[in-house]
């Protein structure tokens, strides 16, 4: 069964520049986590995303295109990346979510992947 783990991190102020130490620390913990996922042979896909201030949000209203700088709404957390994993059941998926660095300061959402019964 496939689940998507959505990694949400706390939003930083736009002018926040992480120190070299912070960056090294981030790289290390995420590197360890991804290594563990890959070693388990359960990863079916995934991407890391550029910071939230690099994003744009598009809406079509009455045929008119509205483009907004940044994310959809003000929130304390934003999506930083995701992986799709294939594991036997929800408890295993929750265990992997709990190990994610995002769960420590942000949150990790676990969503089953829709399986088309006719596919």
């Amino acid at each position: 069964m496939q689940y998507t783990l959505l990694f949400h991190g706390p939003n930083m102020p736009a002018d926040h520049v992480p120190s070299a130490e912070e960056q090294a620390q981030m790289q290390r913990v995420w590197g360890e986590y991804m290594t563990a996922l890959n070693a388990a042979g359960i990863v079916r896909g995934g991407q890391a995303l550029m910071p939230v201030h690099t994003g744009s949000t598009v809406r079509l209203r009455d045929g008119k295109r509205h483009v907004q700088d940044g994310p959809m709404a003000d929130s304390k957390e934003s999506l930083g990346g995701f992986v799709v994993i294939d594991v036997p059941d929800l408890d295993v998926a929750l265990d992997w979510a709990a190990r994610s660095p995002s769960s420590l300061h942000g949150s990790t959402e676990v969503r089953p992947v829709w399986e088309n019964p006719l596919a």
Partner: protein
Amino acid sequence: MTPAAWHAAEVAARDAYGRLLARLAWRWRDVAAAEDALAAALEAALTAWPRDGVPAAPQAWLARVAERRLLDAARHARVAAHPDTQWMLSQEREEAAMDRRLSLLLVCAHPAIDAQLHAALMLQTVLGLDSARIAPAFLATPEAMKRRLSRAKEKIRQARIPFELPGEEALPERLSAVLEAIYAAFSIDNDAAGQSLADEAIFLAELVSLHLPAEPEPLGLLALMLHVQARRAARLTLGFTPLAQQDTALWDRAMARQADALLARAAGAGRPGPFQLEAAIQSAHASRAVTGQTPWEQILGLYAVLNAHWPTLGTLVAACAAALEAGRLDQAMAEWAPLASLPEAQGYQPLWAVGGFIARAAGDRAAAASRLERAAGMAQDAAQASFLRGAI
């Protein structure tokens, strides 16, 4: 039928329903589909049994019909289903099929399911209560309750919440969610609706103890509920009567003794827990029936242990009340004040009731009046409200 016979029949039917549903849901990993199939099998029985006579093994008959329905539905929907087909072929294994109701209870109280729904899901799946019966207890309309429950069952299937029993390291936490949901169902004060879920909750706790005889907390919960249940008549007679003023002649002594025996068995495990301690507190209250006095110092000591390890707003407030009753006014005041500033305490009625009595004992009439009035405004029923206003 005599009331006793009626009760026996009701218990037997409830037992059979839960067993069958748990087994079907466990095998197909789908609570909603199992419910539909079992309902269809019961309907088929209503037609077939009066005509052909009741089969020798009614439960097996129902299981077979429901099982066939599930297979048909699975083929029809072309949904990948993986039942253990060997099971179908083997009568012996059918007879020996384990009771899966504990698994089902653990699924209902899975952390991925909203805790507010745990109790309602258990009552529906394991006891077969319908949404209309469950809804008033949870202050919901039958339609809303039905929708929320079917959403939850959909999640169980679609997110694939496992039906396997959790491992030893995860079991205590998962078990405590089950016990808390059972206690929540028990504690719903639905005198207004005229229906209590206390018997159902006691049945569920018995079921858990039966499956996990070595676990002390299910026994503790059972003892706690029996102690409270033993005083039901005294609580409901003359409007609202606080525990320490109830007429002990109205208490069910036999039930209290049964509760104490269960608690003693739990204590034998040497692993105290919140429900065992709550039961011990209730047992201390019950001892007034024999000694004529409530052992407030002992109760205070039990609350101290409970709150050191498993504090909740309810037990912290109860400890203040016990301190007041034990004649320790300073302690009651000192412990009550910080609780009153908690955001979650603002709408917690017992806090203001206890605060009112503390202020009254301290001679602060103005604070007593305002707190008791505040508590009366939040009271569950008119009897309790008039008791609180009467104390002003």
